[in-house]
């Protein structure tokens, strides 16, 4: 099947809201090249479980595509049209399994040396879309907070080296009450600018109690889900004929209910949580990886206005088979290694935040928990500067957004 053959009946297995959305935009989609459409459907098929902002972005994208005159369709999608797709890919059930198609398409592009052309086409398309759809003004400037180093008593290496050049490094922050101050800022922002999935708290260990306006996910709270997934993965790989690609297909088709998530759970959030483990790599075994990946996905998908990530010590490296077997609740921890992981995780948190609208006005703080080291990045914070003046955490939280 090719995109021009699509009918609304083609999407009979899609969730109801996704089907309605496609019905509205089908004419526009039918004009698009084969190399592009499954990537779009991969987003649409999950529309019912997307965050509000994701939905709005997707609706705008479809409207923009649908509104293009025929003459511009070639301009926007000509480079996708020149990508060759094998007959076996065309015959794949890409309508119902768009994510799996995209995996296979990627392998095909690699093997036919078309990956660079596809990358360029995708980047150009993203740039055009950005220009066509100016983002809505934010109700409040974005703030990112990364708390690293929990459980580390002393550390004599320089911290936050990647972040320092983008802001000011403070070596004498008053540690006492620092964590409370950061959480108070998170709560205050969620109360002042309430919106669904706008303010987030990710914890690599056990989460602190916060107000209901903050979307909270933690590694500890998701332990049953994680163990259930690992058990399911072990069962699947024991089946004859199962290989890495087949397992990915199984994971991509998985629903929260398959892993024992109750039906009265928030369907959007529970699917998001599940995908952190089914799409993330290493999230199932290392809490630091989980926290970093959760931060990335929270920013990419929900475009959080406030995101506080608190890293916790991960388990020490052990044989991969043992790690994947799960069920080691009291595993030996590696606080020092976790600090290094989290330092990089904080850097990626900032990079991911910079990819979002209004990045130049956003603020970011990374702090070595319980210690005096922090870096603060904001529009008026001097870049590459250092300060050894004694400061309170409040000074940092107010400075990064002035």
């Amino acid at each position, binding site marked *: 099947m090719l995109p021009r053959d699509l009918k609304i009946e083609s999407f009979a297995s899609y969730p109801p809201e996704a089907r309605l959305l496609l019905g509205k935009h089908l004419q526009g989609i039918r004009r698009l090249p084969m190399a592009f459409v499954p990537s779009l459907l991969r987003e649409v098929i999950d529309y019912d479980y997307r965050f509000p902002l994701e939905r709005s972005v997707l609706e705008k994208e479809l409207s923009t595509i649908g509104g293009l005159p025929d003459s511009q369709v070639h301009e926007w999608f000509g480079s996708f049209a020149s990508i060759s797709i094998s007959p076996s890919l065309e015959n794949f059930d890409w309508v119902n399994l768009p994510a799996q198609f995209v995996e296979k398409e990627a392998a095909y592009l690699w093997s036919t040396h078309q990956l660079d052309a596809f990358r360029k086409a*995708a980047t150009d398309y993203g740039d055009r879309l950005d220009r066509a759809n100016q983002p809505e003004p934010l109700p409040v400037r974005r703030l990112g907070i990364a708390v690293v180093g929990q459980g580390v008593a002393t550390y004599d290496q320089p911290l936050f080296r990647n972040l320092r050049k983008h802001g000011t490094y403070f070596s004498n922050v008053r540690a006492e009450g620092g964590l409370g101050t950061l959480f108070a800022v998170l709560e205050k922002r969620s109360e002042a600018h309430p919106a669904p999935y706008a303010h987030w708290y990710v914890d690599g260990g056990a989460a602190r109690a916060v107000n209901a306006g903050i979307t909270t996910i933690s590694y500890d709270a998701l332990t049953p889900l994680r163990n259930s997934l690992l058990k399911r993965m072990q069962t699947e790989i024991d089946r004859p004929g199962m290989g890495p690609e087949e397992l990915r297909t199984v994971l991509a088709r998985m629903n929260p209910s398959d892993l024992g998530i109750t039906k009265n759970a928030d369907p959007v959030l529970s699917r998001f949580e599940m995908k952190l483990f089914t799409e993330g790599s290493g999230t199932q075994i290392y809490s630091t990886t989980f926290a970093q990946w959760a931060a990335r996905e929270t920013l990419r998908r929900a475009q959080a206005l406030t995101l506080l990530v608190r890293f916790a010590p991960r388990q020490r490296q*052990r044989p991969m088979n043992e790690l994947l077997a799960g069920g080691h609740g009291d595993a030996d921890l590696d606080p020092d290694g976790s600090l290094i992981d989290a330092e990089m995780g904080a850097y990626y948190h900032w990079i991911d935040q910079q990819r979002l609208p209004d990045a130049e006005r956003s603020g970011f703080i990374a702090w070595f928990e319980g210690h005096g080291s922090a870096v603060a990045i904001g529009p008026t914070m001097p870049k590459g500067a250092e300060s050894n003046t004694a400061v309170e955490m409040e000074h940092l939280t107010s400075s990064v957004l002035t």
Partner: protein
Amino acid sequence: MNRSLYRSETPFAVSRTRRDFLRDAAGLLLGGAVLQASPFIRAESTRKKRKVVVVTFGGGARDQETFAPEGQENIPHMLSEMAPQSSFFTHVTNQGILGHYVATASLATGVYETLNNFASVAPEHPTVFEYFRKELRRPSSDAWVVAPSNGFHRIGESEVRGFGPGQGARVILPKRLLGIASAGTNADFEHLLHDNYETPLYTPALAGGEVELQQLEMILKLSIADFTSHARSLSSPDELSLYIAKRLMREEAPSLLWITMHDIDVAHSGAYSLYIDGIRRTDRLCAELWRVIQTEPEYAGNTTMFVLPDFGRDSDFDAGGNGFQHHRTGDPASRTTWMMVLGQGVRHGVVYDTPVQSVDLVPSIGAMMGFSPSQSSGNPIRELV
């Protein structure tokens, strides 16, 4: 959106950074200024004894964790001990598929292979080992591969007509060997046995076992007890690989030895500290191997050693990836690497910026050793031949 974040990271910019750093830090010369007659012409008389050792710097490492200024602390041995003795190529591009098995196969054939990275298949083109043995009429004992995972067990030879089965390298899989040797014992070698990090749940099953144990005793001159006893003192799969490689060099002295490291690929787990640990370990192991080459009588003075990653890893700034964790985007950081060449016939302390490709390795080895890799799509590297 902050567009300045997406800085232009071209392959040339990546390699220039390496060059500037090496020139400043290690006091190396730029290659263009010293390019004269080939050092291998002078070495012609010793060609018959020539040995080549290739080490893939396991699992892909990026500049900022290795040869860029901020990465130097992770490679003290390569920087201070090896770089001053080496010809260093700053701009090695891999235009192929960035999976470890397929990329290693491409390095070994001199052709960008398109085989399934996770399938148990032979390279689609003749390997360097087949060219070497066929043209120089060398016995099977003269070409060996020490490989990290069961998935590499067919890397030694293709199925191409005129080459193929029985005409390539013998492949030794140290982890498999250890698994067989320790079967039925209570020893815990799990930390040395995990197969790969790209698909950690899968270890391709291989038939046999007796042949490997014979390798242990007949070729490596190691009893099962000695082998397992030594393995207890090792902390990683690559340390095990080096141990086996050293035994091979002592007992078999192959003229063409290929060692594939892969500890660094633990980066797929997303734990940055473990990735850095892997780089530091690999740096130490490469230096140790270089010292062995310089002291083993069969190798000292007549061996050329190549060290190169099979590819890099994704840039921090490519939104399609997740930084160091994977090598999926095909961006310049993941495609552009370096190569260090040391030993016989190699100019010391020279940095070359000229772009070369992964597939140029096999023709270069061919030119050094005196065989013609007819099906390779690469070219001999002018600065080496």
